[in-house]
Each structure stands twice: as structure tokens, then as C-alpha cells.
């Protein structure tokens, strides 16, 4: 199907067109790029919510519980769930649907599983683009679930307006380690599985960590939730709504929107640069030559990298000149 036809289908809410359009965006095909360019003007209506946290924290279960609550409030829900790709085979097992089986039959929910495909930030390179498609298709809330994230996988902050960090009781040390990374990008902190012992301690620890963080206009609330039973989920949805309203309001909202736009452009540029530079270096043989030199200890990796970059620049200059 051509891009124009697919775009029309997406805007009309045709689920099959949306599914195929997502495949194109994920593959970064010419049709996918055209779709993103045409449909971007129709985005910006959905509430984009990021769900992140370590493996086993209960992200998928929480996404399912949130979606159920949003549906009770009469809102339609799109879900993008990212699982890791194998660095060896590049294959992946995408298992997030297992925790959301009951949502499959709901016409107001559309869920797509994605593999991270070598991207290290906790998302896949095209996850934001896929969330945009769901936004354009008219879904009112779009949730993006990251891979199990530790400290540095903060890319969700470039994709979502509101990021929810999911932690568990007894994760004291783990929470400590998050304070410099994920903790800083989250606007809402959740202690999931808070029917287990230690939930109040976890809340206290989070509070203590937030107290030493920079005071900003938005103070991240800390909520106790049991995603499995739905306990605390309505309150969480209320807080997400509050943050969303906050983001839309006044000068602060404008600044945040610009910041999000900047982050998205930078992230995509960085990924494209990385990929294209290495492709060029591989093609020209510059990389292989330097690998030989460094492996033989005739040259250090740092200067080899600088030389490689020079070689790439020359290739690109020649390419541009020949156009």
C-alpha cells in the first residue's frame, strides 16, 4: 500500500492500516518516512505516558492495569511495548501481550510489541515514531513501555511527556543506584507490589532521595500500587492527568514541549549519524585498516577513532561534491 492510502487509513482509525503503517515506520522505509512527515501535523492530541523500571518491576502488568482504568474513564489507549533484541542473533521474544491478554478484544485498545534492535537507551529507535502514529490515529492515551531499565536508559524522557518509574519494595540499593539516572527523568514514582513487606520503607527512601534532588516546578508524587489487583491505579491515573495538565499549561508547558522536540531531533540525528558514519567507514575499508593497526598496537584506539572520523568526513565531502 502507498503512503497516502495508508495515511488516510490511519487518520480514519483503520486498525489494519495503522498496523501496516507501524511496520513501515519501524523498518524506516521510504513509505514510513513519508507517513511520518504527513501525519505529524495530526499528532499532539494524545497524552504520551512512558512506563519504565527494572526487569520484573511489573511494568507490563501496570500498563495493563492503567489501560483498564483509562478504558473505564472512556478513553482509548494505544500501547507500545519494547523488549530487548538479542545482541547475537538480533532476534527477540516479545512477551508483553501475555500480561494484557484481556485487552486484546477491546476495540478501544491497540497494542504493538517492538524489539529494541540494538538501541541501548531502553527504547527502539522508532518507538517515538510509532507512538506518533497511534496519536494520529486518534488514541487518547499512548503508553510506551521500555525494556527493563537500570540506570542509564533514560531515552524514555525523549519520547514521553510524563514518565512513570516503577520500583518495588526491598529494592533499596537498586533505588539508590537509580538516583542519578532514571529517577531524574521520572515525573511520577510508583512502588509497585506494595502489598509486599517493605513498601513504606521504599516510599521513605524515595522521599529522601527526592528531597536532595533539585527542587523544580513539578514535585514527583510517590504512589503505592498493586498493579496485579489494580490497587492504587486510579490514583496513579489521576496523577498522570495532573502532570499532563501541568505540561499543557502556561510558560512551563511551552518550555517542556520545546525541550521534548529538541531531545527527539537530537536522538534521531545521533542514531542516524552513528549508523551512516559506520556504514561509510565500513564500505571504504577505513575501519578495517585501523582495526589492524590498533590490534597490532601500532596505534591507540583514541587516535584511530579521530582518524576514522576524518576519513568519514572526507568521504561525505566527496559524496556531496559529486551530487
Amino acid at each position, binding site marked *: 500500500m502507498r503512503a497516502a492510502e495508508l495515511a488516510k487509513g490511519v487518520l480514519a482509525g483503520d*486498525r*489494519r492500516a495503522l*498496523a*501496516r503503517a*507501524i*511496520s*513501515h515506520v*519501524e*523498518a*524506516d*522505509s521510504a*513509505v*514510513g518516512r513519508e507517513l511520518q512527515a504527513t501525519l505529524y501535523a495530526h499528532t499532539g492530541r494524545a497524552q504520551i505516558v512512558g512506563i519504565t523500571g527494572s526487569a520484573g518491576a511489573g511494568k507490563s502488568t501496570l500498563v495493563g492495569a492503567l489501560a483498564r482504568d483509562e478504558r473505564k474513564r472512556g478513553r482509548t489507549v494505544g500501547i507500545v511495548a519494547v523488549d530487548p*533484541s*538479542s545482541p547475537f*542473533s*538480533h*532476534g*527477540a*521474544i*516479545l*512477551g508483553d*501481550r*501475555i500480561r494484557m*491478554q484481556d485487552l*486484546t*478484544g477491546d476495540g478501544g485498545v*491497540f*497494542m*504493538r*510489541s517492538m*524489539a529494541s*534492535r*540494538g*538501541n541501548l537507551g531502553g527504547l527502539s*529507535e*522508532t518507538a517515538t515514531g510509532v507512538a506518533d502514529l497511534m496519536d494520529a490515529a486518534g488514541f487518547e492515551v499512548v503508553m510506551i513501555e521500555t525494556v527493563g531499565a537500570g540506570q542509564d536508559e533514560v531515552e524514555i524522557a525523549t519520547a514521553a511527556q510524563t514518565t512513570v518509574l516503577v520500583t518495588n519494595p526491598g529494592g533499596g540499593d537498586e533505588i539508590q543506584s537509580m538516583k542519578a539516572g532514571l529517577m531524574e527523568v521520572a515525573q511520577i514514582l510508583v512502588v509497585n507490589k506494595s502489598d509486599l513487606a517493605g513498601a513504606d520503607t521504599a516510599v521513605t527512601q524515595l522521599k529522601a532521595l527526592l528531597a536532595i534532588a533539585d527542587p523544580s516546578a513539578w514535585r514527583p508524587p510517590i504512589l503505592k500500587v498493586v498493579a496485579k489487583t489494580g490497587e492504587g491505579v486510579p490514583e496513579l491515573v489521576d496523577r498522570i492527568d495532573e502532570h499532563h495538565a501541568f505540561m499543557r499549561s502556561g510558560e512551563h508547558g511551552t518550555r517542556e514541549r520545546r525541550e521534548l522536540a529538541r531531545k527527539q531531533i537530537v536522538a534521531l540525528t545521533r*542514531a542516524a549519524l552513528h*549508523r551512516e558514519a559506520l556504514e561509510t567507514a565500513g564500505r571504504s575499508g577505513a575501519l578495517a585498516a585501523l582495526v589492524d593497526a590498533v590490534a597490532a598496537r601500532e596505534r591507540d584506539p583514541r587516535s584511530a577513532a579521530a582518524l576514522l572520523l576524518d576519513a568519514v568526513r572526507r568521504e561525505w565531502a566527496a559524496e556531496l561534491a559529486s551530487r
Partner: protein
Amino acid sequence: MANEQRIRVLIAKPGLDGHDRGAKVVARALRDAGMEVIYTGIRQTPAMIAEAALQEDAQVIGLSILSGAHLELFPRVVDELKQRGVDDVLLFCGGIIPQQDIARIKEIGFQGVFGPGTDTGDIIAFVKAHAPART
């Protein structure tokens, strides 16, 4: 590996039997062959399987069944796919499928039927050879 076309396979277990060892072995083998495998878990209705295949835009659907209800459930999966306009997908199945039922199952659109003892390499080769292109 960022932006390339990868084969997306949906592995599902229709019906009520809860034994998914076989389905998981196949899912794992396909993953190790470089495919992206959406695993939906046990006790799926035909409608759930078709809807998941639609949303995921899977090129391939593999069904595992041990309960003996394949002649009941498989045609309903095909029917649910048809209702949703999902017409460009490769179907295969595995599990306990008696020899005399295989012809009927192929007739309704399952190109591959893989019983106990199948080499996972054969399933990988089959999927790679027949998966329809997407983009």
C-alpha cells in the same frame, strides 16, 4: 540492525490446554534464527489470536495445540483472520495432530504442520522460505 526488516512471528496456543513447552521451544528457536517472536501465552481464543496478529502485523502465525480441538479451533482462527482482512500471513502449526487430519488442516490454509520430533531447523527453514514480505 536498527532499521531492517525482520520476520515477525506470532506464536499462540488456542484453546484450553496449558502445556506450552513446545510453543516456547519453537519461539526460542525462531528468536535464535534472528526473528522477532511475539509470544501471547496460553488459552487464547481464535478472536484474540487474529486480533493480536492484526495489531502486530505479524507475517507468520504459528499455533500450538495438544488438546485435540484443532479441527474445531483452527478453522475459527482462519475465519477470524478473514473477518479482519488479514489475508497475507503464513500459517503453520504444531502439537498433536493426527495424520488423518493433516490434509484438512492444509486445505484451510496451514502450509506447515510440524508434529512431535520435528527438527526446529526445519521450522526455521520453512518460515524463512515462505514468510510474506511486509514493507
